[in-house]
Protein backbone atom coordinates (compact mmCIF):
# COMPACT_ATOMS: atom_id res chain seq x y z
CA UNK A 1 0.00 0.00 0.00
CA UNK A 2 1.00 3.58 -0.57
CA UNK A 3 -0.54 6.71 0.81
CA UNK A 4 -0.31 10.40 0.06
CA UNK A 5 -2.18 12.73 2.35
CA UNK A 6 -2.12 16.19 3.80
CA UNK A 7 -4.17 18.61 5.88
CA UNK A 8 -3.95 22.38 5.58
CA UNK A 9 -5.52 25.28 7.37
CA UNK A 10 -8.16 27.15 5.43
CA UNK A 11 -7.97 30.91 4.89
CA UNK A 12 -10.58 31.51 7.62
CA UNK A 13 -8.43 29.85 10.27
CA UNK A 14 -5.28 31.50 8.96
CA UNK A 15 -6.95 34.88 9.31
CA UNK A 16 -8.05 34.36 12.88
CA UNK A 17 -4.92 32.50 13.94
CA UNK A 18 -6.72 29.23 14.63
CA UNK A 19 -5.05 25.89 14.02
CA UNK A 20 -6.11 23.35 11.43
CA UNK A 21 -9.11 21.43 12.75
CA UNK A 22 -8.77 18.55 10.28
CA UNK A 23 -6.68 15.48 11.02
CA UNK A 24 -5.68 12.36 9.15
CA UNK A 25 -3.92 9.12 9.92
CA UNK A 26 -2.89 6.22 7.71
CA UNK A 27 -1.42 2.80 8.38
CA UNK A 28 -0.59 1.26 5.03
CA UNK A 29 0.48 -2.13 6.38
CA UNK A 30 1.50 -5.17 4.36
CA UNK A 31 -1.62 -7.12 5.28
CA UNK A 32 -4.07 -4.80 7.01
CA UNK A 33 -4.43 -1.09 6.35
CA UNK A 34 -6.24 1.90 7.74
CA UNK A 35 -6.94 5.37 6.44
CA UNK A 36 -8.97 7.93 8.36
CA UNK A 37 -9.75 11.63 7.99
CA UNK A 38 -11.64 13.78 10.47
CA UNK A 39 -12.99 17.31 10.36
CA UNK A 40 -13.47 18.99 13.72
CA UNK A 41 -16.61 21.10 13.75
CA UNK A 42 -15.50 24.71 13.61
CA UNK A 43 -18.14 25.90 16.02
CA UNK A 44 -16.72 23.75 18.84
CA UNK A 45 -13.92 25.03 21.03
CA UNK A 46 -11.97 21.77 21.05
CA UNK A 47 -12.59 20.71 17.47
CA UNK A 48 -8.88 20.16 16.81
CA UNK A 49 -8.51 17.83 19.78
CA UNK A 50 -11.67 16.00 18.75
CA UNK A 51 -10.45 15.39 15.23
CA UNK A 52 -7.04 14.18 16.39
CA UNK A 53 -8.55 11.94 19.02
CA UNK A 54 -10.89 10.46 16.43
CA UNK A 55 -8.05 9.43 14.13
CA UNK A 56 -6.34 7.72 17.05
CA UNK A 57 -9.57 6.14 18.22
CA UNK A 58 -10.09 4.78 14.71
CA UNK A 59 -6.65 3.18 14.94
CA UNK A 60 -7.45 1.73 18.38
CA UNK A 61 -10.70 0.23 17.12
CA UNK A 62 -9.21 -1.03 13.86
CA UNK A 63 -6.41 -2.84 15.70
CA UNK A 64 -8.91 -4.78 17.78
CA UNK A 65 -11.25 -5.37 14.84
CA UNK A 66 -8.48 -6.66 12.61
CA UNK A 67 -7.49 -9.23 15.23
CA UNK A 68 -10.93 -10.79 15.13
CA UNK A 69 -12.39 -12.64 12.19
CA UNK A 70 -15.80 -12.55 13.84
CA UNK A 71 -16.08 -8.87 14.74
CA UNK A 72 -18.53 -6.93 12.59
CA UNK A 73 -18.08 -3.50 11.11
CA UNK A 74 -20.59 -2.24 13.63
CA UNK A 75 -18.39 -3.60 16.42
CA UNK A 76 -15.49 -1.54 15.13
CA UNK A 77 -17.63 1.60 15.01
CA UNK A 78 -18.94 1.05 18.53
CA UNK A 79 -15.40 0.60 19.76
CA UNK A 80 -14.23 3.70 17.89
CA UNK A 81 -16.89 5.78 19.60
CA UNK A 82 -15.86 4.51 23.03
CA UNK A 83 -12.14 4.97 22.35
CA UNK A 84 -12.78 8.50 21.13
CA UNK A 85 -14.50 9.45 24.37
CA UNK A 86 -11.78 7.79 26.44
CA UNK A 87 -9.04 9.61 24.56
CA UNK A 88 -10.69 13.02 24.93
CA UNK A 89 -9.64 15.24 27.79
CA UNK A 90 -12.37 17.74 27.04
CA UNK A 91 -16.18 17.50 26.91
CA UNK A 92 -17.20 15.46 23.89
CA UNK A 93 -19.74 18.03 22.69
CA UNK A 94 -16.95 20.62 22.55
CA UNK A 95 -14.81 18.34 20.42
CA UNK A 96 -17.35 17.26 17.81
CA UNK A 97 -15.83 15.88 14.64
CA UNK A 98 -16.77 14.03 11.50
CA UNK A 99 -15.02 10.72 10.84
CA UNK A 100 -14.39 8.91 7.56
CA UNK A 101 -12.38 5.73 7.33
CA UNK A 102 -11.30 2.84 5.18
CA UNK A 103 -10.07 -0.23 7.06
CA UNK A 104 -8.80 -3.60 5.89
CA UNK A 105 -8.66 -6.35 8.49
CA UNK A 106 -6.12 -8.67 6.87
CA UNK A 107 -8.68 -11.47 6.71
CA UNK A 108 -10.20 -10.52 3.38
CA UNK A 109 -12.57 -7.85 4.63
CA UNK A 110 -12.60 -4.08 4.29
CA UNK A 111 -14.91 -1.49 5.81
CA UNK A 112 -15.91 1.95 4.61
CA UNK A 113 -17.46 4.10 7.29
CA UNK A 114 -18.56 7.71 7.37
CA UNK A 115 -20.18 9.88 9.99
CA UNK A 116 -20.86 13.38 8.73
CA UNK A 117 -19.77 15.45 5.75
CA UNK A 118 -16.92 14.60 3.44
CA UNK A 119 -16.22 12.14 0.69
CA UNK A 120 -15.09 8.55 0.37
CA UNK A 121 -14.51 7.36 -3.18
CA UNK A 122 -13.07 4.12 -4.50
CA UNK A 123 -11.42 3.91 -7.91
CA UNK A 124 -11.25 0.52 -9.52
CA UNK A 125 -8.27 -0.57 -11.59
CA UNK A 126 -10.50 -0.03 -14.64
CA UNK A 127 -10.80 3.64 -13.69
CA UNK A 128 -14.45 3.35 -12.63
CA UNK A 129 -15.24 5.28 -9.46
CA UNK A 130 -17.80 4.60 -6.77
CA UNK A 131 -18.72 7.25 -4.22
CA UNK A 132 -19.57 5.87 -0.80
CA UNK A 133 -23.08 7.06 0.04
CA UNK A 134 -23.05 9.64 2.80
CA UNK A 135 -25.82 10.15 5.32
CA UNK A 136 -24.87 13.77 5.88
CA UNK A 137 -28.00 15.88 5.78
CA UNK A 138 -26.59 18.63 3.61
CA UNK A 139 -26.64 22.40 4.05
CA UNK A 140 -24.05 22.07 6.80
CA UNK A 141 -26.22 19.96 9.07
CA UNK A 142 -23.96 17.09 9.72
CA UNK A 143 -23.77 14.27 12.19
CA UNK A 144 -20.55 13.94 14.11
CA UNK A 145 -18.88 12.28 17.04
CA UNK A 146 -19.90 14.50 19.93
CA UNK A 147 -23.34 15.36 18.55
CA UNK A 148 -26.45 13.29 19.24
CA UNK A 149 -26.46 10.35 16.86
CA UNK A 150 -26.87 6.60 16.71
CA UNK A 151 -25.05 3.77 15.00
CA UNK A 152 -27.48 4.02 12.08
CA UNK A 153 -26.23 7.53 11.34
CA UNK A 154 -22.96 5.99 10.23
CA UNK A 155 -22.84 5.05 6.59
CA UNK A 156 -21.09 1.68 6.85
CA UNK A 157 -20.25 -0.76 4.09
CA UNK A 158 -18.30 -3.99 4.22
CA UNK A 159 -16.49 -4.61 0.99
CA UNK A 160 -13.51 -6.36 -0.55
CA UNK A 161 -9.98 -5.09 0.17
CA UNK A 162 -8.20 -3.06 -2.46
CA UNK A 163 -6.77 -4.98 -5.38
CA UNK A 164 -3.65 -3.95 -7.22
CA UNK A 165 -4.41 -0.77 -9.14
CA UNK A 166 -7.34 0.17 -6.93
CA UNK A 167 -7.39 3.24 -4.73
CA UNK A 168 -9.42 4.92 -2.02
CA UNK A 169 -9.66 8.68 -1.55
CA UNK A 170 -10.93 10.30 1.63
CA UNK A 171 -11.61 14.02 1.83
CA UNK A 172 -13.07 16.45 4.32
CA UNK A 173 -15.78 18.76 3.05
CA UNK A 174 -13.34 21.63 2.50
CA UNK A 175 -12.11 19.56 -0.43
CA UNK A 176 -15.10 17.45 -1.37
CA UNK A 177 -17.56 20.33 -1.71
CA UNK A 178 -15.43 21.89 -4.43
CA UNK A 179 -14.62 18.77 -6.43
CA UNK A 180 -16.06 18.17 -9.88
CA UNK A 181 -17.98 14.92 -9.43
CA UNK A 182 -17.14 13.88 -12.97
CA UNK A 183 -13.38 14.20 -12.37
CA UNK A 184 -12.93 12.24 -9.14
CA UNK A 185 -11.11 9.43 -10.91
CA UNK A 186 -8.82 11.96 -12.58
CA UNK A 187 -7.96 13.52 -9.23
CA UNK A 188 -6.99 10.15 -7.75
CA UNK A 189 -4.92 9.26 -10.82
CA UNK A 190 -3.13 12.62 -10.63
CA UNK A 191 -2.20 12.09 -6.99
CA UNK A 192 -0.97 8.55 -7.63
CA UNK A 193 0.85 9.13 -10.91
CA UNK A 194 2.21 12.64 -10.52
CA UNK A 195 2.61 13.20 -6.78
CA UNK A 196 3.05 9.60 -5.67
CA UNK A 197 6.49 8.98 -7.21
CA UNK A 198 7.92 12.09 -5.58
CA UNK A 199 9.87 11.50 -2.35
CA UNK A 200 7.98 14.34 -0.66
CA UNK A 201 4.55 13.67 -2.09
CA UNK A 202 2.77 14.80 1.07
CA UNK A 203 4.50 18.16 0.99
CA UNK A 204 3.57 18.60 -2.64
CA UNK A 205 -0.03 17.80 -1.88
CA UNK A 206 0.05 20.28 1.01
CA UNK A 207 1.29 22.97 -1.35
CA UNK A 208 -1.50 22.15 -3.77
CA UNK A 209 -4.13 22.30 -1.05
CA UNK A 210 -2.73 25.62 0.15
CA UNK A 211 -3.21 26.95 -3.37
CA UNK A 212 -6.79 25.74 -3.65
CA UNK A 213 -8.14 27.18 -6.92
CA UNK A 214 -11.80 27.74 -5.99
CA UNK A 215 -12.84 31.36 -5.32
CA UNK A 216 -13.82 32.34 -1.77
CA UNK A 217 -12.86 28.98 -0.26
CA UNK A 218 -12.39 29.17 3.50
CA UNK A 219 -12.37 25.70 5.04
CA UNK A 220 -9.53 23.55 6.26
CA UNK A 221 -8.74 20.87 3.72
CA UNK A 222 -7.69 17.27 3.95
CA UNK A 223 -7.16 14.83 1.12
CA UNK A 224 -5.86 11.29 1.53
CA UNK A 225 -5.30 8.79 -1.27
CA UNK A 226 -4.43 5.18 -0.45
CA UNK A 227 -3.66 2.72 -3.22
CA UNK A 228 -2.36 -0.75 -3.71
CA UNK A 229 0.72 -1.13 -5.82
CA UNK A 230 1.95 -4.26 -7.52
CA UNK A 231 4.64 -4.63 -4.84
CA UNK A 232 2.35 -3.91 -1.89
CA UNK A 233 1.97 -7.52 -0.83
CA UNK A 234 5.65 -8.38 -0.92
Amino acid at each position, binding site marked *: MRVVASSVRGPAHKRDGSPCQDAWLAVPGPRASLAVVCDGMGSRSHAREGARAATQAARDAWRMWSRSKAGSGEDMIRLLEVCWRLRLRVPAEQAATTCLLYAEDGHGRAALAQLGDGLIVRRASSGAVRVHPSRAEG*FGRTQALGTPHTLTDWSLDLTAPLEVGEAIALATDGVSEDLDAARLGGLITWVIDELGPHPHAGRLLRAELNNWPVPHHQDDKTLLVLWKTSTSTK
Partner: protein
Amino acid sequence: MGFASYREDIVSRLGGDQRPRHKEIRPMSRLKEFTVQNARPLPVILLADVSGSMGVDGKIQALNHAVREMLEAFQDEADLRAEIHVSVITFGGQARTHLPLGPAQSVKWSDLGAAGGTPMGAAFDLAGQMVEDRNVVSSRSYRPTVVLVSDGQPTDAWQQPLEAFLASERGGKAFRMALAIGADADHDVLKAFLADPSARVYRADEAKQIRTFFQLVTMSVSSRSRSANPNSAPAISDDGWDL
Protein backbone atom coordinates in the same frame (compact mmCIF):
# COMPACT_ATOMS: atom_id res chain seq x y z
CA MET B 1 3.47 -5.12 18.59
CA GLY B 2 1.40 -6.79 15.95
CA PHE B 3 1.40 -6.13 12.28
CA ALA B 4 -1.10 -3.36 12.76
CA SER B 5 1.50 -1.00 14.09
CA TYR B 6 3.89 -1.67 11.24
CA ARG B 7 5.13 1.57 9.68
CA GLU B 8 2.40 3.60 11.23
CA ASP B 9 4.73 5.85 13.16
CA ILE B 10 6.66 6.49 9.99
CA VAL B 11 3.84 7.44 7.68
CA SER B 12 1.08 8.64 9.94
CA ARG B 13 0.63 12.34 10.47
CA LEU B 14 -1.89 14.39 12.32
CA GLY B 15 -3.10 17.43 10.42
CA GLY B 16 -1.03 20.54 10.60
CA ASP B 17 1.01 22.91 8.55
CA GLN B 18 4.70 22.24 8.17
CA ARG B 19 6.90 24.14 5.81
CA PRO B 20 9.03 22.20 3.36
CA ARG B 21 12.63 22.30 4.47
CA HIS B 22 14.02 22.81 1.00
CA LYS B 23 12.85 23.76 -2.44
CA GLU B 24 11.61 21.00 -4.66
CA ILE B 25 10.85 20.57 -8.32
CA ARG B 26 7.12 20.27 -8.31
CA PRO B 27 4.85 18.58 -10.79
CA MET B 28 2.55 20.99 -12.55
CA SER B 29 -0.54 21.83 -10.52
CA ARG B 30 -3.63 20.36 -12.05
CA LEU B 31 -6.12 20.86 -9.23
CA LYS B 32 -8.08 23.30 -11.38
CA GLU B 33 -8.99 20.40 -13.64
CA PHE B 34 -10.67 18.56 -10.79
CA THR B 35 -12.49 21.37 -9.03
CA VAL B 36 -15.42 23.58 -9.87
CA GLN B 37 -14.37 27.13 -10.56
CA ASN B 38 -17.08 29.12 -8.89
CA ALA B 39 -17.73 29.92 -5.24
CA ARG B 40 -20.36 28.00 -3.32
CA PRO B 41 -23.80 29.47 -3.96
CA LEU B 42 -26.04 30.92 -1.28
CA PRO B 43 -29.56 30.83 -2.76
CA VAL B 44 -32.16 33.46 -1.93
CA ILE B 45 -35.64 32.60 -3.18
CA LEU B 46 -38.36 35.24 -3.00
CA LEU B 47 -41.98 34.14 -3.12
CA ALA B 48 -43.76 37.36 -4.06
CA ASP B 49 -47.49 37.95 -3.96
CA VAL B 50 -48.36 39.86 -7.15
CA SER B 51 -52.12 39.40 -6.91
CA GLY B 52 -54.43 42.23 -7.92
CA SER B 53 -54.56 43.67 -4.41
CA MET B 54 -50.84 44.40 -4.56
CA GLY B 55 -51.65 46.94 -7.26
CA VAL B 56 -53.22 49.41 -4.82
CA ASP B 57 -51.64 51.83 -2.36
CA GLY B 58 -48.30 51.67 -4.16
CA LYS B 59 -47.48 48.20 -2.82
CA ILE B 60 -46.24 46.65 -6.05
CA GLN B 61 -44.16 49.73 -6.82
CA ALA B 62 -42.64 49.56 -3.35
CA LEU B 63 -41.95 45.84 -3.78
CA ASN B 64 -40.24 46.40 -7.14
CA HIS B 65 -38.14 49.19 -5.70
CA ALA B 66 -37.18 47.13 -2.66
CA VAL B 67 -36.21 44.06 -4.67
CA ARG B 68 -34.16 46.16 -7.07
CA GLU B 69 -32.32 47.73 -4.14
CA MET B 70 -31.67 44.30 -2.65
CA LEU B 71 -30.23 43.03 -5.93
CA GLU B 72 -28.03 46.10 -6.25
CA ALA B 73 -26.79 45.59 -2.71
CA PHE B 74 -25.91 41.97 -3.49
CA GLN B 75 -24.13 43.07 -6.65
CA ASP B 76 -22.07 45.58 -4.69
CA GLU B 77 -20.99 43.03 -2.10
CA ALA B 78 -17.32 42.11 -2.18
CA ASP B 79 -15.16 39.70 -0.25
CA LEU B 80 -17.97 37.25 0.35
CA ARG B 81 -17.49 33.65 1.25
CA ALA B 82 -20.47 32.63 -0.84
CA GLU B 83 -21.83 33.68 -4.20
CA ILE B 84 -25.37 34.96 -3.68
CA HIS B 85 -27.87 33.52 -6.13
CA VAL B 86 -31.38 34.93 -6.40
CA SER B 87 -34.67 33.67 -7.74
CA VAL B 88 -38.11 35.29 -7.71
CA ILE B 89 -41.27 33.19 -7.84
CA THR B 90 -44.43 35.21 -8.23
CA PHE B 91 -48.01 34.27 -7.51
CA GLY B 92 -50.73 36.46 -8.99
CA GLY B 93 -53.34 34.67 -11.08
CA GLN B 94 -50.81 31.90 -11.52
CA ALA B 95 -47.51 30.92 -9.93
CA ARG B 96 -44.47 31.24 -12.13
CA THR B 97 -40.74 31.74 -11.97
CA HIS B 98 -40.18 35.41 -12.75
CA LEU B 99 -36.43 35.15 -12.22
CA PRO B 100 -34.66 31.77 -12.49
CA LEU B 101 -32.08 31.06 -9.80
CA GLY B 102 -28.76 32.55 -10.81
CA PRO B 103 -25.91 34.73 -9.57
CA ALA B 104 -27.09 38.11 -8.26
CA GLN B 105 -24.15 39.65 -10.11
CA SER B 106 -25.72 38.90 -13.48
CA VAL B 107 -29.40 39.49 -12.72
CA LYS B 108 -31.34 41.64 -15.16
CA TRP B 109 -34.37 42.78 -13.20
CA SER B 110 -37.73 43.53 -14.80
CA ASP B 111 -40.50 45.00 -12.68
CA LEU B 112 -43.42 42.92 -11.48
CA GLY B 113 -47.03 43.71 -12.34
CA ALA B 114 -50.04 42.90 -10.12
CA ALA B 115 -53.10 40.95 -11.26
CA GLY B 116 -55.29 37.97 -10.41
CA GLY B 117 -55.80 35.84 -7.33
CA THR B 118 -53.29 34.55 -4.76
CA PRO B 119 -52.23 31.00 -5.65
CA MET B 120 -49.72 30.69 -2.82
CA GLY B 121 -49.94 26.89 -2.73
CA ALA B 122 -48.74 26.69 -6.32
CA ALA B 123 -45.84 28.97 -5.37
CA PHE B 124 -44.88 26.57 -2.55
CA ASP B 125 -44.88 23.77 -5.12
CA LEU B 126 -42.57 25.73 -7.42
CA ALA B 127 -40.25 26.62 -4.55
CA GLY B 128 -40.12 22.98 -3.43
CA GLN B 129 -39.27 21.80 -6.93
CA MET B 130 -36.54 24.40 -7.20
CA VAL B 131 -34.90 23.64 -3.86
CA GLU B 132 -35.01 19.89 -4.37
CA ASP B 133 -33.60 20.02 -7.91
CA ARG B 134 -29.86 19.30 -7.52
CA ASN B 135 -29.26 20.81 -10.95
CA VAL B 136 -30.67 24.12 -9.73
CA VAL B 137 -29.64 24.16 -6.06
CA SER B 138 -26.47 22.10 -6.13
CA SER B 139 -25.21 20.00 -3.25
CA ARG B 140 -22.46 22.61 -2.80
CA SER B 141 -24.99 25.29 -1.98
CA TYR B 142 -25.30 26.79 1.44
CA ARG B 143 -28.69 26.70 3.11
CA PRO B 144 -31.12 28.79 1.09
CA THR B 145 -33.05 31.73 2.43
CA VAL B 146 -36.70 31.62 1.33
CA VAL B 147 -38.66 34.84 1.72
CA LEU B 148 -42.48 34.98 1.53
CA VAL B 149 -44.23 38.30 0.96
CA SER B 150 -48.03 38.52 0.79
CA ASP B 151 -50.86 40.96 1.35
CA GLY B 152 -53.80 38.58 1.29
CA GLN B 153 -55.38 35.18 1.73
CA PRO B 154 -54.34 32.27 -0.48
CA THR B 155 -56.93 31.48 -3.13
CA ASP B 156 -55.80 27.91 -3.71
CA ALA B 157 -55.17 24.86 -1.51
CA TRP B 158 -51.95 25.86 0.23
CA GLN B 159 -51.74 23.49 3.24
CA GLN B 160 -50.62 20.36 1.43
CA PRO B 161 -48.01 22.12 -0.76
CA LEU B 162 -46.64 23.93 2.30
CA GLU B 163 -46.48 20.72 4.32
CA ALA B 164 -44.70 19.03 1.42
CA PHE B 165 -42.23 21.90 1.17
CA LEU B 166 -41.47 21.90 4.88
CA ALA B 167 -41.20 18.12 5.02
CA SER B 168 -38.90 17.90 2.01
CA GLU B 169 -35.27 17.01 2.58
CA ARG B 170 -34.01 20.48 1.77
CA GLY B 171 -37.01 22.82 1.95
CA GLY B 172 -37.42 22.29 5.66
CA LYS B 173 -33.81 23.26 6.29
CA ALA B 174 -34.06 26.62 4.52
CA PHE B 175 -33.97 29.83 6.51
CA ARG B 176 -37.39 31.38 6.14
CA MET B 177 -38.59 34.97 6.51
CA ALA B 178 -42.11 36.28 6.01
CA LEU B 179 -43.69 39.71 5.52
CA ALA B 180 -47.38 40.48 5.92
CA ILE B 181 -48.34 43.54 3.91
CA GLY B 182 -51.39 45.44 5.15
CA ALA B 183 -54.22 44.43 7.42
CA ASP B 184 -55.66 41.79 5.06
CA ALA B 185 -52.59 39.55 5.03
CA ASP B 186 -53.14 36.06 6.43
CA HIS B 187 -50.79 35.90 9.40
CA ASP B 188 -51.66 32.28 10.13
CA VAL B 189 -50.44 31.15 6.70
CA LEU B 190 -47.27 33.17 7.04
CA LYS B 191 -46.69 31.79 10.53
CA ALA B 192 -47.23 28.26 9.21
CA PHE B 193 -44.63 28.99 6.53
CA LEU B 194 -42.07 29.96 9.16
CA ALA B 195 -42.89 26.77 11.13
CA ASP B 196 -40.93 28.12 14.08
CA PRO B 197 -42.72 29.41 17.19
CA SER B 198 -39.83 31.77 17.94
CA ALA B 199 -39.76 33.25 14.44
CA ARG B 200 -41.67 36.40 13.75
CA VAL B 201 -43.90 37.46 10.86
CA TYR B 202 -42.86 41.00 9.97
CA ARG B 203 -45.57 43.57 9.24
CA ALA B 204 -45.63 46.34 6.72
CA ASP B 205 -48.61 48.59 7.31
CA GLU B 206 -47.19 51.16 4.92
CA ALA B 207 -45.58 50.65 1.55
CA LYS B 208 -42.28 52.15 2.74
CA GLN B 209 -41.94 49.34 5.28
CA ILE B 210 -41.66 46.86 2.41
CA ARG B 211 -38.34 48.51 1.64
CA THR B 212 -37.32 48.26 5.29
CA PHE B 213 -38.09 44.55 5.30
CA PHE B 214 -35.94 43.94 2.24
CA GLN B 215 -33.12 45.87 3.87
CA LEU B 216 -33.39 43.41 6.74
CA VAL B 217 -33.34 40.49 4.28
CA THR B 218 -30.29 41.98 2.57
CA MET B 219 -28.45 42.38 5.86
CA SER B 220 -29.36 38.87 6.92
CA VAL B 221 -28.12 37.30 3.69
CA SER B 222 -24.99 39.46 3.53
CA SER B 223 -24.18 38.60 7.13
CA ARG B 224 -24.40 34.89 6.38
CA SER B 225 -22.37 35.17 3.20
CA ARG B 226 -19.56 36.89 5.11
CA SER B 227 -19.65 34.63 8.15
CA ALA B 228 -17.24 31.80 8.89
CA ASN B 229 -20.08 29.36 8.34
CA PRO B 230 -22.80 30.62 5.99
CA ASN B 231 -24.94 27.64 6.94
CA SER B 232 -25.35 29.09 10.42
CA ALA B 233 -28.20 31.39 11.37
CA PRO B 234 -27.48 35.04 10.59
CA ALA B 235 -26.18 37.09 13.51
CA ILE B 236 -28.65 39.92 12.94
CA SER B 237 -30.94 41.30 15.59
CA ASP B 238 -34.39 42.21 14.33
CA ASP B 239 -34.88 44.71 17.14
CA GLY B 240 -35.14 48.33 16.13
CA TRP B 241 -36.61 47.69 12.71
CA ASP B 242 -39.88 49.49 11.99
CA LEU B 243 -41.70 46.28 11.07
